């Protein structure tokens, strides 16, 4: 079975203006480097506080951003005019391109090490079933994020970089981004249930 046919070639009937923006905000790379360095330092030190801090901050950010994108910003974005939608997209999506992979990597890497430190990832842990359930939920979210969400994020920015971006392609990719954000947002609720259970025992 092949992917849906892709329309190419002729210029789009309703071509949007080309906005000026950086696909990858270079200044933001400094923040990414700082966060990743902090994660490496926390894993190397294997101290409870920095691991818990990075895991909690990253996890809370990941959850809130997914829920906000999927259920607040997504419906609003769909009702905006095309120029307003493009302007918001060119300002929002480059930041998301750096923010989300960084937040997810920090959450998962610090969370794994925190689990090793506390013993909650070990099969002898009395709530091991809940821990494995969290692996499964996070695994599904990761597949959705890596296979659908992140490629859509990059593709919409590359489309907007073209001299004449195709609004139909942008709309299709943004829908994919928003829907998958909403889906992972719903799954985040399951993560919150599991994490609450693991926290109180």
């Amino acid at each position, binding site marked *: 079975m092949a992917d849906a046919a892709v329309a190419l070639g002729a210029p789009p009937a309703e071509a949007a203006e080309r906005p000026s923006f950086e696909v990858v905000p270079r200044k933001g790379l400094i923040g990414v480097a700082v966060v990743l360095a902090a994660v490496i330092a926390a894993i190397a030190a294997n101290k409870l506080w920095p691991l818990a801090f990075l895991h909690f901050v990253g996890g809370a950010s990941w959850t809130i951003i997914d829920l906000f994108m999927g259920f607040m910003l997504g419906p609003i974005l769909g009702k905006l005019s095309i120029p307003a939608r493009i302007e918001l997209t060119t300002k929002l999506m480059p930041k998301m391109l750096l923010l989300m992979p960084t937040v997810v990597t920090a959450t998962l890497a610090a969370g*794994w090490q925190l689990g090793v430190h506390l013993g909650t990832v070990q099969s002898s842990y009395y709530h091991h079933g809940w821990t494995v359930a969290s692996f499964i939920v996070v*695994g599904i979210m990761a597949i959705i994020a890596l296979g659908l969400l992140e490629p859509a994020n990059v593709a919409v920015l590359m489309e907007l970089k073209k001299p004449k971006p195709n609004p139909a392609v942008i709309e299709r990719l943004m829908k994919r981004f928003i829907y998958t954000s909403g889906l992972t947002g719903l799954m985040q609720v399951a993560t919150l249930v599991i994490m609450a259970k693991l926290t109180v025992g």
Partner: protein
Amino acid sequence: MDERRLPPVTEIGMASLGLIVAGGIYLAAHLPQHVPLAPAVVLLAASAALLAGNLLALSRVGGFAWDRFFAVARWALLAYTITAGLIEFAFLRDHMSGGPLVVLTLSLVVYAVHVPTLIGFTVARYAVPGEG
């Protein structure tokens, strides 16, 4: 307006990622006990086969915007190699060794190659060859 059919690269890529995630969960769920490696190896081999099949199918697409694909995929490869390295560092820090380390390391290789492939494909499918 011309139309073209493309192989299901995204679907196969997600299936491949699903297999290595399943293998990783299987191994992680047994820690620190001895883990029978066969299920994880089978999952990894199937995932790697899907990656190879995906790359082969993509290489046979005529008129594909390879310039755009590589322009994006090489930077994505760098980014995902860094994240894979970070995860590998955590495994080594926790003194993981032997078969589980080999399986998880190879799983990270599949991850670090397949995700950039998906990103490059998603960008290039909406591009015209040579448009820059």
